[in-house]
């Protein structure tokens, strides 16, 4: 076994261990540790990705001295390594972009705690990405939930605490359902390891045994993860949580945390249940319908919203709807589109959150649209970046959003029964997106007359501006050279099977 195969294990352990280390460090040192860890993990994942693309085969890694099904295992393929790399990039950029606003209302002695949470969040995301064992997945889902809750309430104003409570309640409902589904699955198959469960499940399907419990178990797991990733009817906690937490938290939460759960769901679909078996159930139709509803209602709520951060948060609801719609199509193309949308949405949404903070900063800290008038002139970089993000969301070519919409449409065209519904809702949702994002862009570029707020130049916000530029570049990169990425996703999904 090559030494590189150790890299996923190193990434997880490194980020876990750095969390422990941060607990004895002061805030500044913890920050450095955090950055170094994210970069290191990113580099490790990058090397791993190259290695896997080169070898063309996924591998499993024993966590201990015992092979599966006795010991724990993690597994790395192209998609996993790519996701890990991407998560690191987004996380680093989000942290750097929000760094200057990070500790507005946090006591200095608690700064290192924030980095502990970030490190543990990273490790749990990595574990969710790499895991090959259902129960490990559950444990790390819990770490993910709790640290996400910490990220929400670190600001400790009433709103964030209330949001954190709502988030926790919904998340715990989701965890409960997930665990229950898991238990039923364990009862039916006698395994916890993904590959073994899959074998047993296909055997059960062949023999026609335990059909009802099997379906119920799949459904419970799906519903659990849907709740945790804020699919439409379960999205009530989301706007407050994303809207009032510190900006880095909001960016990370919207682009990574919910995506981690969605990625786990993809993994479950492919590695636990089997893609064809999953598609033969009615669950995909339910996911499809809720996805469509999410696309519409999320956008409608965003239009009604008068607060820029909450608007972006509601837009996340719509975008998550897109992803589930892709699942619901039940084809390989739909899945590819969804995975691509995970990437594109993560890149865009964190860009929007970080640009939005730049805009509110020059508007006296207010997030109401009325105060944002002309903010695009006062903070040019944030204005341009927000516009770029909006264009990507709206689906203008050259940006990542266009490609994902194109992929969705392409996937929808191949599915007989769902084609029209998907395309029409896609169209409506795009127009609604255009309405609220363009409204915002126009608002920030409407001349405000004389405002008391000062302009901000590049010098005042070097890091912020550079991060914004990097985000825009990432977005354009996803939009322009999507082919290799789509190929990679296809290859990765093929490795899943």
């Amino acid at each position, binding site marked *: 076994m090559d030494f590189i195969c150790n890299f996923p294990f190193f990434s997880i352990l490194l980020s876990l261990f750095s969390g422990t280390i941060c607990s004895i460090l002061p805030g500044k040192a913890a920050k450095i540790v955090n950055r170094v860890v994210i970069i290191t993990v990113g580099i490790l994942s990058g090397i791993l990705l190259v290695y896997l693309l080169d070898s063309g085969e996924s591998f499993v890694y024993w966590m201990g001295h015992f092979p599966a099904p006795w010991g724990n295992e993690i597994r790395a393929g192209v998609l996993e390594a790519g996701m890990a790399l991407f998560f690191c990039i987004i996380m680093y950029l989000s942290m750097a972009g929000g760094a200057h606003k990070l500790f507005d209302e946090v006591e200095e002695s608690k700064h290192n705690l924030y980095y502990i949470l970030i490190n543990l969040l990273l490790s749990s995301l990595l574990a969710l990405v790499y895991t090959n064992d259902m129960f490990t997945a559950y444990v790390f889902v819990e770490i993910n939930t709790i640290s996400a809750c910490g990220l929400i309430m670190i600001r400790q104003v009433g709103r964030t605490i209330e949001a954190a409570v709502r988030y926790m309640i919904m998340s715990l409902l989701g965890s409960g359902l997930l665990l229950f589904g898991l238990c039923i699955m364990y009862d039916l198959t006698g395994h916890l390891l993904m590959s073994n469960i899959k074998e047993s499940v296909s055997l059960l399907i062949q023999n026609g045994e335990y059909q009802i419990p099997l379906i119920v178990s799949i459904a419970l797991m799906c519903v659990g993860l849907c709740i945790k990733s804020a699919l439409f009817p379960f999205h009530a906690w989301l706007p407050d949580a994303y809207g009032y937490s510190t900006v880095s938290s909001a960016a990370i939460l919207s682009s990574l945390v919910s995506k981690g759960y969605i990625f786990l769901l993809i993994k479950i679909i492919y590695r636990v249940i089997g893609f064809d078996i999953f598609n033969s159930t009615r669950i995909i139709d339910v996911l499809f319908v809720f996805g469509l509803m999410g696309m519409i209602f999320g956008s409608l709520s965003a239009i009604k919203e008068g607060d820029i951060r909450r608007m972006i948060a509601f837009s996340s609801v719509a975008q998550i709807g897109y992803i589930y719609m892709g699942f619901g199509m039940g084809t390989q193309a739909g899945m590819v589109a969804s995975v691509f949308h995970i990437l594109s949405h993560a890149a865009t949404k964190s860009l929007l959150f970080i640009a939005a903070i730049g805009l509110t900063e020059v508007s006296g800290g207010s997030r109401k649209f009325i105060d944002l008038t002309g903010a695009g002139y006062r903070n040019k970089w944030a204005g341009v970046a927000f516009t770029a993000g909006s264009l990507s969301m*709206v689906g203008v070519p050259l940006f990542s959003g266009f490609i994902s919409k*194109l992929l969705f449409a392409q996937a929808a065209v191949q599915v007989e029964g769902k084609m029209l519904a998907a395309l029409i809702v896609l*169209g409506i949702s795009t*127009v609604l997106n255009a309405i609220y994002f*363009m409204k915002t862009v126009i608002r920030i570029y409407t*001349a405000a007359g004389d405002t008391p707020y000062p302009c901000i130049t590049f010098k005042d916000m070097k890091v912020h501006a550079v991060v914004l530029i990097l985000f825009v570049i990432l977005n354009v990169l996803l*939009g322009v050279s999507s*082919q290799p990425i789509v190929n990679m996703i296809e290859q990765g999904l093929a490795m899943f099977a």
Partner: protein
Amino acid sequence: MYLILLPILFPILAGFCLLAYRKDPGRKLLTITTGICLVITGALVVVALMGTKQGLTLFHLTKKLPIYFNIDKISVIFSLLTVIVFLCAGFFSFVYMKHEQKEKRYYGYYLMAFGVLNALCFAGNLITFYLFFELLTLSSFPLVLHTGSKEAVMAGLKYLFYSLCGAYASLFGIYFLYHNCETLTFTAGGVLQISPASREGSFFLLIAFVMILGFGVKAGMFPMHAWLPTAHPAAPAPASAVLSAVIVKAGVLALIRVIYFIFGTGFLQGSWVQTAWLTLTLVTIFMGSMLAYREPVLKKRLAYSTVSQLYYILFGLAVMNEEAFTGSLLHVLAHGFIKSTLFLTAGAIIYTTGKTRVDELRGIGKKMPFTMWCYTIVSLGLIGIPPTGGFVSKWYLAMGGLTGDIGIFRYLGAAVLLVSALLTAGYLLPLTIQGFFPGADYDDTACRKQEPARLMTIPILCLTILSVLVGLFPNIITNYLTDFVSTLL
């Protein structure tokens, strides 16, 4: 080979630099820079047109979707029109914009729109076209809301939403075409290999109709024309000139590309889509003229006139035979020159007198005889009196309509064209008549000559001459097009 990119990238970059430049450069420097940029761009377009032999694939968005540029005869005609109108209106605006705020922003977006339009003309496949179609909307809508007044912002928003919705409707079609066609490169005669009689074919007829409606929004098609009459009066005059002479033509170009180069006329000929489209065009022509006739505000009247005149062009396209198509292209040129002249004269009048309503402009011919003469000449052209540009194009259109295989529309079309020509006379000439013959009670002594600055009159003159030239020597253009048109049908 990369020559083709120059006229696209140069103005966009120049405009971007202008916008990003922090300090106020001063009016003189600004106008000179912009002027130089405009001239260079014009020259670059000509160079690109002369020097380009083959298409250029820039990069691939996805496997089947390259960003691809190519030049054919349609591109030549549209890009020449763009260059001329943009140069003339640009120079006109150097004076006109004196009384507006934030000139730098205006010129920046103006240059960007110029570059995007060039790209639109050179686009070699549907996705490239769509990309720049969206960008055109985005870069031209700051021009509409330039003044920043409440009406202007509302008009800008209206423009934006109509255009975006239209573009998404067409994107809807692109999704299907992408799936069912081997390529989306513009190919004379179409790329869709489906018979309209099949089950899929009937579905694609629907798609074609949706795309026609979608792109038709930009061209002001009747149910979705509402943005035009609000956007034009709100925008500064040179901006309305380019808007109605060139930017709405992007919609026409889109329809030409979609119908003749993607679906192919064979697919649509005789289908219900053609019938519906013809009905829509005729209704629009008539409605536009009627609305213009009843409209008191000059620029709004001209905007309604644009709606109606554009549908002459679309009527020609919908008929789908050689004469009508040639007539359409001729009318694109003629209307481009004429309508930009009209808007520029309207701008000159507003600039000197500050009056916008037709009934306030009694005796304007005495004050600004030169401007009004140009106005009169091009008005005659728009009405279609020989030997002006409008006459030839309308002749071709009528001939095409009469010989076309379109059933009842054969006669209906000709009749509507005639009636609409009358209405055109009815809404354009009153200004001339009142302007030159204010009536006995008009106090001649009170008025003095108020001709605008040289930089305003010269562009108007140039455009007037060009519009006349189109009428005098249409053969150059028709000869140039003959071979090409026959490959299309």
